[in-house]
C-alpha cells in the first residue's frame, strides 16, 4: 500500500514537472501577465481582478479576429511581496510583454521595482500605494521616499487623492461636526489614505475627535474603537479600509447603540454583495468609489451581466479596474502599432509615451488621463447606500 502510494506520488510529481515545460511556443499574441492573490486571505481581490481582465481579453479577442490578439496569464502571489516577485519572474519566463501589475499594494511595491528595472510596462488595476509609483511626496514629511519608477502606471486612485478628496467632500457637504476615524495601521492602503485625510482635515479645520487603529491580527473586535468614538461624541465615522472589517464595525456599532453617519472609500465597495450581510446595517453609508455595479449605463450593465454569468457574483471595483486596464493597454497598443513580436522594452517605450498623452473612457471613469508620475485623473463618484443599493449623492 505504502509502496503504491509512493509510486503514484512520484508519478504525479514527474508529470507535473513535465507539465511545466512546453507551451513556450510563440503564439503570435500579445502576452499580458498579471499577478495577484488568487489564494489566501486577500484572494477575493486577486480573483476579481483576474476575472475582470479575462472578460476584457475575451471580448477584445472576439471583437478583433484579424487584429492584435491578447493572451492573458495570471499568477498567484498570495498577497506576499516575495511570492509576487517569483510570480513576476515566472511570467517573464513565459514571455510576458506587458505586465498588468500586482493587484494589492504590498506586492505591488515589490514587483514595480523589478518591472521598472526590466523596462517592462506596468499598469496596476488596484495597487494604490504611492510607493508603487514612486516619486510622490509624502504628505507627512514633505519628502519623496521612493524614486519615481518610470514604467509604472495606476488605474486606481492613488491613496492620497482618496484621503484628501474624502476630507474635501466631508467639508464641502458639511457631513459632520465631530469626526472619528478608524484605520488599519499595518496596511499601506489604509494608512496612506488616513495620512492624507489627516493632513487635508487639518488644513480645512475639520474637527477630528477620535483616531483609533487596528491590525490584521486584531480585526475581529472593534469595541474599543467604537467606544472611543462614541465617548468623544462623534457624529461621522470615517472608515478608510476594505469592506470586510468595515462590515464588522457596522454590526458592532449597531450592537453598541452607536449610530453615526459612515463615510468610506473605494475599498468599502463590495459590502452589499457580502453573502449573508444584513444590508440594513449599511443603510446611509456614504462612499467615494469609481465604479458602481448597479449603474445604468450600457457598458457597465453588459460587463456585470457577463461577469455574473461566468463567475456567479457581482463584480467589485477590482474587477472593473482590471477590465479597464486591459482595454487601456489595448487602446494604447493598437494606436502605437504594437505587434506581438516586439520586445517588452520597445512596447514599454511606446506605451509610456501614449499613456501620458491619451484619453481613455472605461467603466471606472470617463475621460481618464495619466500624468507622467503614473497617477490617473478621474473623478470619484459620491455614493450613498439606500434600500440596499448605491445611489449617486450629487
Amino acid at each position: 500500500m505504502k509502496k503504491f502510494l509512493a509510486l503514484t506520488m512520484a508519478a504525479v510529481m514527474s508529470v507535473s514537472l513535465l507539465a511545466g515545460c512546453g507551451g513556450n511556443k510563440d503564439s503570435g499574441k500579445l502576452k499580458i501577465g498579471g499577478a495577484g492573490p488568487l489564494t489566501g486571505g486577500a484572494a477575493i481581490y486577486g480573483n476579481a481582478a483576474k476575472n475582470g481582465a479575462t472578460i476584457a481579453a475575451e471580448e477584445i479577442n472576439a471583437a478583433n479576429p484579424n487584429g492584435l490578439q491578447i493572451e492573458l496569464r495570471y499568477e498567484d502571489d498570495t498577497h506576499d511581496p516575495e511570492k509576487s516577485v517569483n510570480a513576476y519572474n515566472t511570467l517573464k519566463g513565459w514571455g510576458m510583454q506587458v505586465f498588468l501589475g500586482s493587484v494589492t499594494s504590498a506586492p505591488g511595491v515589490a514587483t514595480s521595482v523589478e518591472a521598472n528595472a526590466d523596462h517592462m510596462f506596468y499598469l496596476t488595476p488596484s495597487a494604490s500605494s504611492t510607493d508603487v509609483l514612486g516619486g510622490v511626496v509624502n504628505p507627512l514629511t514633505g519628502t519623496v521616499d521612493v524614486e519615481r519608477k518610470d514604467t509604472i502606471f495606476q488605474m486606481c486612485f492613488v491613496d492620497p487623492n482618496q484621503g484628501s478628496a474624502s476630507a474635501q467632500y466631508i467639508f464641502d457637504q458639511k457631513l459632520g461636526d465631530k469626526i472619528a476615524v478608524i484605520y488599519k495601521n499595518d496596511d499601506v492602503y489604509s494608512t496612506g489614505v488616513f495620512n492624507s485625510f489627516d493632513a487635508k482635515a487639518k488644513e480645512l479645520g475639520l474637527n477630528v475627535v477620535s483616531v483609533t487603529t487596528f491590525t490584521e491580527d486584531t480585526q475581529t473586535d472593534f469595541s474599543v474603537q467604537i467606544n472611543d468614538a462614541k465617548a468623544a461624541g462623534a457624529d461621522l465615522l470615517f472608515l478608510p479600509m476594505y469592506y470586510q472589517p468595515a462590515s464588522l464595525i457596522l454590526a458592532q456599532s449597531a450592537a453598541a447603540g452607536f449610530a453615526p453617519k459612515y463615510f468610506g472609500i473605494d475599498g468599502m465597495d463590495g459590502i452589499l454583495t457580502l453573502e449573508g450581510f444584513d444590508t440594513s446595517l449599511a443603510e446611509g453609508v456614504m462612499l467615494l468609489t469609481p465604479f458602481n455595479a448597479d449603474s445604468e449605463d450600457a457598458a457597465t450593465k453588459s460587463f456585470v451581466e457577463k461577469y455574473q454569468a461566468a463567475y456567479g457574483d457581482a463584480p467589485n471595483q477590482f474587477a472593473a479596474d482590471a477590465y479597464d486596464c486591459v482595454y487601456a493597454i489595448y487602446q494604447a497598443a493598437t494606436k502605437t502599432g504594437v505587434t506581438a513580436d516586439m520586445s517588452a522594452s520597445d512596447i514599454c517605450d511606446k506605451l509610456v509615451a501614449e499613456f501620458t498623452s491619451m484619453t481613455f473612457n472605461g467603466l471606472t471613469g470617463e475621460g481618464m488621463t495619466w500624468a507622467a508620475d503614473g497617477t490617473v485623473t478621474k473623478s470619484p463618484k459620491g455614493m450613498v447606500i439606500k434600500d440596499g443599493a448605491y445611489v449617486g449623492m450629487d
Partner: protein
Amino acid sequence: MSFLNNLINGIGLGSVYAIIALGYTMVYGIAKMLNFAHGDVIMVGAYVCFFASSTYGLHPLVGVLLAMAVCTVLGVVIERLAYKPLRQAPSLAVLITAIGMSYFLQNAAQLLWTPNPKVFPAFFTLANPDGTSRTGVDLFGGQLTVRFTTIVNLLVCIVIMVLLTWFTGNTKMGKAMRACSENKDAARLMGIDVNFTISITFAIGSALAAIAGVLFLSSYQTLVPTTGSMPGIKAFTAAVFGGIGSIPGAFLGGVLLGVIEIMAGAYISTQLANAIVFAVLIITLLVRPAGLLGKQVREKV
C-alpha cells in the same frame, strides 16, 4: 461606566478565546501535541453551521449538531492520517505536520467555498415589540450594553469546563486519558488502548471546536477560510497563559487575555494593544513558567 463597558467587552472577547483554548488544552494535555489545525477545524465547523442554517434553513441547533458531527469525523480522520503515523516520531515532526494540516484545511476551504467572505447569521437575538431585533441587554438607560453572545459564550464555557473536568476525573475513558497523558507505555501495559484513547481525545476536541466555531462566529460574524487562524493563535496563547493542559487554566487565560487586550487598547493605545498582550504573557511566563494554573513539575536529576 466606560470602564465597565470595556470590562464587559473584554470578557466577551475573552470568552471566545477561552472556548477555543479549552479544545487546545484538552488535546495538548492528553496527546501531548500542539494541534495547530484546531483553529481551522473551528473554521470548518463554522462553515458547516453556516450552510446548514443559511443555505438549507435548518434550525441553528441542528446546524450546531451537524457541525459537531462533521468536525468530530474530521478530527478523527486528521488524527488517523496525519498524526498517528508519527506517534513515535520526534515532537517537532508532529508540530510541523500540524502546521501543514492547518494550511491544508485553509486552502481546501478556499477551493470548496471560495475566499469570498460570508456573514454568519446572528443566532442570539431577541425580537423587540416593534419588530426589530436586539443583540444585547441595555443597562443603566443604554449606557452599558451586554451582548447576548457574551452571556451565552460564558455560560457555554463554564458548562464545558465543568463537564470536561468531570469527564477526565470520573469516567473510565477520562481516567484512561489521564493515564495516557502520564505515560503512554505504562498505560499500554495496564491494558489501555492508547490509540483509541487518543482518537477519542481528538473527537472530543474537534466537537468542542465546532461549538467554539459557532459561538465565535455569532460574536464576530465575518466568515472566511482564514477565520480560524488568528483566534487559534490567540487561544493557544491563552492556553499557555493559563497553563497548558489545565482545563480551568484555559478558561482563566482566555478571559484574562481578552480583558487585557481590550483594556490595553482602551487606556493605552490601540496601536500597542497586541504588544501589551504579549508583553504580559512573557512576564507571566518568566514568573510562572508553567502558566497561571499549570502544574509546576520539578525535574528529578
